[in-house]
C-alpha cells in the first residue's frame, strides 16, 4: 500500500462524483493515469497536453527569474543605492542577492495570485460542468505575471484574472475552444479598465508610485523616473539606454518581457522541442522588420520632420524595434498559442507576419500607449479563423480543379 495504491483507491471512490475532476486534476499532476487505449491505435506517443504546457513554462522560467532580479535592480538603481550595470550580461551589479530578494518579494505574489485565482476558477468550472481540469491555464498563469507591471495591485490582478478566464475562455467551452489568448485578454482588461495604472511612467519600477505619492505629500526625496524606452521614444526623447542593455534586459518594463536574450533562449527551446511554431515566430519578425523599414524609409525620405509626434518611434532603426517593449515576448510566447493562432501552416505565415507588422504600426501611431503587440495579437486572434478559412478554401479549390481538369 504505497501512495500510488492509496490514491488509486481514492480515485475509484470519487469516480462519478461531483468532486472527481478536482481530485483527478491533483492526482494526474502526481501520476500519469493508468488509462489504456481501447479502439484505434493501441499505442500512443508519450506526449500529452501536460508535457506540452510544461515545456512552455520551462521556456519561460529564465524570463521569470530574470524578471525578479530586474525588479530589484530597477528599484535599487532608481533610489540610487546601486550603480548601473557596467560589464555585460553577467554584471555583478545586476545579479545581486538583494535584487533577487526584493524582486521575488514583488513578483512571487503576482505568480501566486495568478495561479491561485485562475486555477480556482478552472476547478470551479470543471466541477460544475463535470469535465476534467484542462492544462491551458498552466501556461496562462505563468504568462500573466510576466506581462504586467511589477507594482500592479493584487486586487486588480485578481479581477482581471477572473475576467480573463471566465470571459476569455470558459464561456467558449474551456481550453482549446477560446478565440482570444486568455493571458492577453487579462492584460487587455487591465489596460482598458485601469489605463492610468497600465501606462505612463510610474508603474514600471517598483516603488515609483509610492515615491510620487510621498513627493506629492511634500516629503523631500528624489522622484523616481521609471519610464520605459517606448514611453520615452513616444515623447520624442532619446532612448536613454545602451543597445546591449536592451538586449540583455536591464531596462524597465513589464516583469518578464525585458530580456531579449532570454526570450530568444525560450524561443529556441520552443522551436527545438517542436512545441511552438517557428513559422509564426519567423514571419512575425519579418513583419516587424518590414513595417520598421517602411517607417525608417519615411524618415529617410524626409516626409516627416523631427517636430512630428511620430518622429521618435519612426526614426528608431527597424532592428532596435525588435528589442524594445514586449514585441519579442509576445511573438515567442503568445502569438504562438496554437488554440488562438492560425492552425494551418500557410496560415501561420500570414498570421505571424501581420502580428509583427501591426505591432510596429500600432506602436508608432498610438503615443498614448506605445506598445502594439498586445493589440496586434488580439486582433490577429480574431482574424486567424478567417485566414485559415481561405487557406483551406485553396485546398478545396485544388480538389475541385482536379475533377474539372479530368472532365474536360
Amino acid at each position: 500500500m504505497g501512495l500510488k495504491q492509496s490514491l488509486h483507491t481514492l480515485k475509484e471512490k470519487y469516480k462519478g462524483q461531483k468532486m472527481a475532476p478536482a481530485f483527478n486534476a491533483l492526482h494526474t499532476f502526481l501520476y500519469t493515469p493508468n488509462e489504456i487505449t481501447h479502439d484505434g491505435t493501441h499505442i500512443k506517443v508519450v506526449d500529452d497536453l501536460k508535457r506540452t504546457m510544461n515545456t512552455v513554462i520551462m521556456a519561460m522560467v529564465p524570463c521569470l527569474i530574470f524578471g525578479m532580479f530586474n525588479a530589484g535592480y530597477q528599484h535599487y538603481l532608481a533610489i540610487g543605492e546601486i550603480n548601473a550595470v557596467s560589464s555585460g550580461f553577467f554584471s555583478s551589479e545586476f545579479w545581486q542577492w538583494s535584487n533577487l530578494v526584493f524582486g521575488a518579494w514583488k513578483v512571487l505574489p503576482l505568480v501566486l495570485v495568478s495561479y491561485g485565482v485562475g486555477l480556482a476558477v478552472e476547478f470551479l468550472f470543471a466541477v460544475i460542468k463535470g469535465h476534467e481540469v484542462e492544462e491551458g491555464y498552466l501556461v496562462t498563469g505563468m504568462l500573466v505575471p510576466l506581462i504586467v507591471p511589477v507594482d500592479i495591485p493584487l486586487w486588480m490582478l485578481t479581477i482581471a484574472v477572473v475576467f480573463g478566464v471566465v470571459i476569455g475562455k470558459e464561456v467558449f467551452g474551456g481550453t482549446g475552444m477560446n478565440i482570444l489568448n486568455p493571458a492577453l485578454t487579462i492584460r487587455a482588461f487591465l489596460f482598458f479598465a485601469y489605463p492610468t495604472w497600465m501606462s505612463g511612467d510610474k508603474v514600471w519600477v517598483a516603488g515609483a508610485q509610492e515615491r510620487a505619492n510621498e513627493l506629492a505629500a511634500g516629503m523631500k526625496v528624489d522622484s523616481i523616473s521609471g519610464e520605459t524606452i517606448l514611453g520615452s521614444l513616444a515623447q520624442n526623447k532619446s532612448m536613454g539606454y545602451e543597445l546591449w542593455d536592451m538586449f540583455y534586459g536591464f531596462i524597465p518594463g513589464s516583469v518578464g518581457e525585458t530580456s531579449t536574450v532570454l526570450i530568444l533562449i525560450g524561443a529556441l527551446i520552443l522551436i527545438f522541442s517542436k512545441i511552438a511554431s517557428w513559422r509564426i515566430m519567423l514571419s512575425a519578425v519579418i513583419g516587424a522588420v518590414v513595417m520598421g523599414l517602411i517607417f525608417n524609409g519615411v524618415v529617410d525620405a524626409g516626409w516627416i520632420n523631427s517636430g512630428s509626434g511620430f518622429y521618435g518611434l519612426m526614426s528608431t532603426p527597424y532592428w532596435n524595434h525588435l528589442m524594445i517593449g514586449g514585441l519579442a515576448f509576445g511573438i515567442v510566447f503568445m502569438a504562438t498559442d496554437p488554440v488562438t493562432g492560425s492552425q494551418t501552416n500557410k496560415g501561420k505565415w500570414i498570421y505571424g507576419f501581420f502580428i509583427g507588422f501591426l505591432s510596429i504600426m500600432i506602436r508608432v501611431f498610438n503615443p498614448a500607449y506605445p506598445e502594439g503587440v498586445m493589440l496586434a495579437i488580439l486582433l490577429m486572434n480574431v482574424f486567424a479563423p478567417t485566414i485559415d478559412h481561405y487557406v483551406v478554401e485553396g485546398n478545396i479549390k485544388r480538389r475541385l480543379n482536379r475533377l474539372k481538369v479530368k472532365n474536360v
Partner: protein
Amino acid sequence: MSKDIKIKKGLNINLKGEAEKTLSKAPRAASFAIRPKDFHLVTPKMVLKEGAKFKAGEVLFYDKNNASVKFVAPISGTLTSIERGAKRVITQLLIQADTADTYFLNPVLDLNKATGEELKAHLLASGCWPFITQRPYHVMAHPDHSPKAIFISGYTTAPLAADLDFTLIGKEAELQAAVTALSKLTHGQVHICIGGDSNSPLKGLNHCQVHSISGPHPAGNVGVQIAQIDPINKGETVWTVKAEDLVIIGELLLTGKFNAERIVALAGSSLGAPQYYAAIIGSEVAPLISEAQLVAQNSRVISGDVLSGRAIDLQGYLGYFDNTISVIPQGDDYELFGWNKPVFDKISSTRALTFSWMQPNKKYDLNTNTNGEHRAFVMTGNYEEVFPMDIFPLQILKACMVQDLDQMEALGMYEVAPEDFALTEFVCVSKQPHQKIIREGLDLMYKEIG
C-alpha cells in the same frame, strides 16, 4: 508509366518483438469464429443453421442488402453456435473444425477467356468478393460499380506488421491469376506498389502497373499510394485489395478451392519467439500464441497491427482481414510524474524532454497506456508532419465531429479510410480517437450521400 514515389512525411514506429523471418505450420486449430462485423455495414443473412456441417468454401451467409455477395467457411466443420448481440445482430459464428479439411470445389474458369462479368459472378459466388474494398467510404466493394482503378499495396510500413515481401514468397502464380482477374473488373488499371528496393514477388506481374514507393509509414498504406498515383475525385470509385488476399483469390481461380490459409506474423514484445506461422482465417489465437511463447501475462492481444488492429483476448480469433497478431504489454499502471520527467524509453513526435529523436532506429517497447488524458484539440501542425496526403487532417476531423457533410466532402473525405488517420491518432497530444471519428464520418456520409 510506372512511377517512383518518395514519401517524406510520416513516422516509422520501431517496436521490439518484430517477427523473425522463419515460417512454421501452426498447430491445427479446433475452434474458429467468423465475425460479420469484420465486413463493415454488411447485414448477414444465414444460409446454414446451428449444427450444420459444411466443407471449406461452402456458403455460411450472404449480405442481406446485396444477396449476390456470399461469405464462405474458411475450413470444413460444424457450425456450433450463432452468437447474437443487441437487436439480435449476429456477432459471431462459432465453428468446430474437422480434423482435416474437405473442400467445396468451385468451377475453374479459363482466365484468359473469361469476361469481367463472368469473373465477377465467380468471385461473388465463391466467397472471394469480400476481399475487395472500395473507396469512398472504405466498405466492401459494391458489385454493380466499375472502379476507375484497383490498388494493391505490397509495401509494409506499419509497426510489427507482417512483411509482404516475406509472406508472398512462392505465390507468384496465385498472385498473377488474381491480378489478371482483377484487371478485367476495372475500366482502368490495376496499380501495385512495392518497396523501393524490394524483391517482392509482385514485382514481375503482368496486367498491372507496378510502382515503387519508399518512405516512412504510412507509405505502405494504400490510401497514400492512391493519392500519389490517381487520387479519387467526387463520383469516382476505386477498389483496393490486400496483397495477402490476392493469394486466396488466386488459388481459388486456379484450383477452385477456397483455401483460407494465410501467412501470419506473430509479433510484439510480449512474445518470446515472435515469428511467422501459416494460419487459417478465423482460427483461435491461443495455440498460436503459446507456440510463440507468451512471456508477459498482462498483455494485450491484437488481431492486426498495433495502430489499426482490433483488441481481442487470449481466447480470441484471427480477424478476417488480418495477417498480423500483435501482443504487447498492457499499460494499466500509474507513472510518477510521467508528464514532466525526461523520457528515454517511449516514442515521441516532439523533443519536449523526450529523446526518441536522438535514436531514430532504436526499437521501443511500448505498452497500451494512453500516456495522458483525453483533451480538446489544442496543438496544431503536428498531424501534418506525419500525414502525407494533400488533406487538412485537423480540419477534416473537426468537420466529421460536427457532421458537416458539405465540408467533409470538400475536404477530401472520399479519399480517406480510418487507417490513414492512425498515425495522426498515435501522435495526438490530446489523445483524440481519430480513426473512430473518421469511421463515423464515413458511415454518416455513406448513409446520407452514398
